[in-house]
């Protein structure tokens, strides 16, 4: 016979003013199973909890009902009180008589009291069916996987490795460094991007706890937090990294020229190449799509000139597996292709370039030796028009959101332009200047005052050609007039978008992503680096556009979260998960089909006791199950039940009203 204790809370006046608390206690006492009922001013306070603890021992209670605020508020508190008194904490039920009664029926005390009594009775009925549950502990593999080797991935990998946790860093391209390696200087301090990034890249390569796998991609991730298994494909580089010294003879002699991605296609690289001089690892790879030896079987020069014999045209992709405990996703961003801006003549006019192209031009190691030039005739431009919000904040042609960094990098570009071409003039068409950040507004002021960049408030409506100039037409809303700027060069601040394959990666990882393709954080405010899937974290622009300081901060936060998971040898997990009753299971595997986490597998069990004949039944993986109950509702034979929300508990609630 169940012995239930009921504890009704006044919550100061919050409940007591609108619900007749003594009446609720009285009603509770009339329930057969209730052996003890009491009210108190604040049940959650220490004296309140003490009453529960005392009553448990004194009345030999088998389950507890607390009628107070929402269980989302204090369920944990009261569970703690139960376990302090030596009782299984999952024998607690909370009747929510504050949010669901006293606060929402303030005009009708009688009805509110009646409802509170009903809620208590339901909780009592449910608690009778409660079972003792025990936290599940799951072993942890202490190795982290970082996907993406841009500044976010580099920072996360270094921070985790510094805590002496092994890290596997997988990078898609031949070198780590990411977008930051393409930048000339960084706002708002105008630090040289290479100067601050390269030391970190070298650290990654030499760190004893980091395994760097460049030119590779993640193929599969299975398992659950603490126990993932990742399949990684190492793309064939056709160069044996173990013997290659990175001397550079091969790429000097290679006859095939390909547009150089690192310089946004402004100049050419070879078919065997390192992306840029400071690349880490500084070993070349062969671009299989363009190498004539690999496409047509002709050439073979690099193999001839390589003294170490490191070139291997027969190399195949290799698939490796790593056991890991947590994942940091840092896949970065792409830039939006401005082709839909037909009114600007994008694609028709050579002298319209994107900001990253401009960045490469003004970069000291860039294709034009740090001087911006007009692609059409190679002349140095005088009047340069910068147009912001290309694709950003434009749901008609691009995306709805603000890309966050364009205001600042455009400001930086006006200053860099002024530095590189002293007699130039920058015109900036903007809609708003979003300069919220440390030193950002001062930086904008510097551009507007020191370099006298002309800021025009409005979106450009049309660009057309007159002679060899581009005429840029837009409204300056500040004077309410249409203005036309005669420009030599137009720079488009194109929007930040997630990498094209982000959704694929997200699906592979089992992480949700938004309509644009950014991966979704678990909570926009309180859990900004976690994903809804335990053990997978987000750093940098893979979650949303952000600048370098924010990216680095988020990467370090990810590292802290990873270290948190790895702080013990096992992890604790809520026991409210599904279990299978083998006796009833028919092995139809509907549950396997609907489980959103792949937490259900099958196993073979004997047909009957001692029987040799086997049959298939479902089996829940405790570590993976999140306790949604989807499987329970599709189980026709009612073989699966969800601890904490069993059919019996819910039916008890329904019939006891």
């Amino acid at each position, binding site marked *: 016979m169940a012995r239930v204790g009921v504890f009704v809370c006044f919550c100061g006046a919050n409940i007591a003013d609108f619900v007749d608390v003594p009446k609720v206690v009285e009603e509770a006492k009339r329930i057969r199973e209730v052996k003890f009922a009491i009210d108190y001013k604040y049940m959650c306070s220490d004296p309140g909890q003490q009453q529960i603890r005392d009553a448990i021992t004194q009345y030999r209670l088998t389950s507890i009902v607390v009628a107070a605020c929402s269980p989302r508020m204090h369920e944990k508190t009261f569970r703690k009180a139960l376990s302090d008194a030596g009782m299984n904490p999952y024998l607690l039920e909370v009747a929510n008589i504050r949010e669901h009664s006293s606060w929402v029926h303030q005009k009708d005390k009688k009805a509110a009291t009646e409802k509170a009594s009903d809620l208590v009775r339901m909780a009592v009925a449910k608690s009778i069916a409660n079972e003792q549950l025990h936290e599940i502990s799951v072993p942890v593999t202490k190795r982290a996987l970082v996907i993406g080797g841009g500044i976010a991935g580099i920072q996360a990998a270094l921070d985790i490795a510094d805590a002496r946790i092994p890290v596997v860093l997988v990078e898609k391209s031949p070198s780590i460094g990411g977008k930051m390696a393409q930048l000339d200087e960084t706002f708002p301090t105008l630090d040289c991007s290479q100067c601050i990034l390269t030391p970190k890249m070298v650290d990654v390569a030499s760190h004893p706890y980091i395994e760097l796998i460049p030119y590779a991609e993640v193929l599969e991730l299975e398992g659950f937090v603490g126990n993932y298994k990742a399949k990684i494909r190492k793309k064939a580089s056709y160069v044996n990294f173990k013997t290659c010294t990175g001397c550079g003879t091969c790429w000097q002699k290679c006859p095939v020229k390909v547009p150089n991605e690192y310089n946004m296609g402004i100049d050419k690289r070879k078919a065997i190449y390192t992306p840029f001089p400071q690349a880490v690892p500084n070993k070349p790879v062969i671009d299989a799509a363009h190498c004539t030896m690999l496409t047509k079987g002709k050439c073979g020069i690099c193999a001839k000139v390589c003294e170490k014999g490191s070139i291997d045209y027969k190399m195949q992709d290799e698939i490796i597996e790593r056991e890991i405990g947590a994942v940091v996703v840092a896949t970065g961003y792409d830039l939006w292709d401005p082709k839909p801006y037909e*009114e600007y003549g994008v694609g028709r006019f050579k002298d319209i370039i994107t900001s990253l192209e401009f960045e490469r031009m003004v970069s000291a190691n860039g294709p034009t030796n740090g001087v911006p030039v007009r692609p059409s005739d190679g002349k140095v431009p005088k009047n340069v028009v910068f147009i912001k*919000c290309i694709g950003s*904040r*434009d*749901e*008609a*042609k691009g995306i709805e959101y603000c890309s966050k960094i364009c205001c600042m990098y455009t400001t930086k570009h006006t200053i860099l332009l002024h530095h590189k071409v002293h007699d130039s003039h920058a015109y900036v068409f903007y*809609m708003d200047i979003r300069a919220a950040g440390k030193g950002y507004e001062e930086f904008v002021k510097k551009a507007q005052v020191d370099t006298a960049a002309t800021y025009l*408030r*409005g*979106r*450009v*409506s*049309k660009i057309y050609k007159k002679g060899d100039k581009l005429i840029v*037409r*837009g*409204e*300056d*809303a500040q004077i*309410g007039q*249409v*203005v036309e700027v005669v420009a030599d060069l137009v720079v488009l601040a194109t929007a930040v978008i997630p990498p094209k394959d982000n959704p694929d990666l997200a699906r592979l990882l089992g992480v949700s992503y938004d309509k644009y393709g950014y991966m979704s954080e678990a909570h926009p405010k309180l859990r900004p680096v976690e994903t809804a899937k335990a053990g997978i974290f987000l750093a940098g622009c893979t979650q949303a556009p952000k600048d370098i300081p924010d990216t680095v901060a988020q990467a370090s936060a990810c590292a802290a979260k990873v270290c948190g998971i790895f702080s013990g040898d096992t992890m604790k997990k809520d026991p409210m998960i599904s279990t299978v009753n083998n006796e009833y299971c028919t092995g139809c595997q509907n549950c396997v089909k609907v489980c959103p986490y792949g937490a259900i597998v099958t196993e073979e069990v004997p047909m009957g006791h001692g029987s040799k004949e086997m049959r298939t039944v479902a089996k829940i993986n405790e570590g993976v199950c999140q306790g949604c109950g989807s499987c329970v509702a599709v189980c026709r034979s009612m073989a699966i039940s969800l601890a904490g929300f069993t059919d019996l508990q819910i039916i008890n609630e329904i019939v006891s009203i």
Partner: protein
Amino acid sequence: MITLGLQEKNTLLAEVNQRSGANVLECYQCGKCVSTCPVSQYMDFPPREIIQLVKLGQRNEVYMANSTWFCLTCSACSGRCPRQIEIPAVMEAIRHLAIEENYVNDSTKVKEIRKFHEIFLDMIKRYGRNYELRMMAEFNIRTRNLFKDMHLAPKALLKGKIPLGVKPMKSAKAIRRMYQLAEKLEKKHQ
């Protein structure tokens, strides 16, 4: 000066949105429409400002502005609007509302434009089709500008550019009936 906060509710906004099917609240004043509009320089308020005035509920300014009459419905603005607002529809909605509520902009230009449209519609009512020469002549008479475009006339007529007659429609009656029914429908609508 415009004083805000006196109106109980911005009914203008609701009416314009309802009539046009657009939502002018989406406008974030980027001004792309203004520099796109071929006739914004002739307008009292270019499209961006008209929309802002609608948002501010300034019925008189909006209705009395010549902007809506100057709109050529060339749809260049709406094609480029980043928020995809159907600006020509907004302009049309305002124009119809102004006509219905008897706001009359009596600047010469607007009067001429309006007269032109009225004569044009009248012409269709009478003949079912447009009769260009008569149209031009009637317009000049009604706007008391007898000699406008007279310098074009000899050349145009001589070259047969503007023919002297028109092939009339057989069932002009059907058109007149359409006009009556349309009028009735619009009355009911109001």
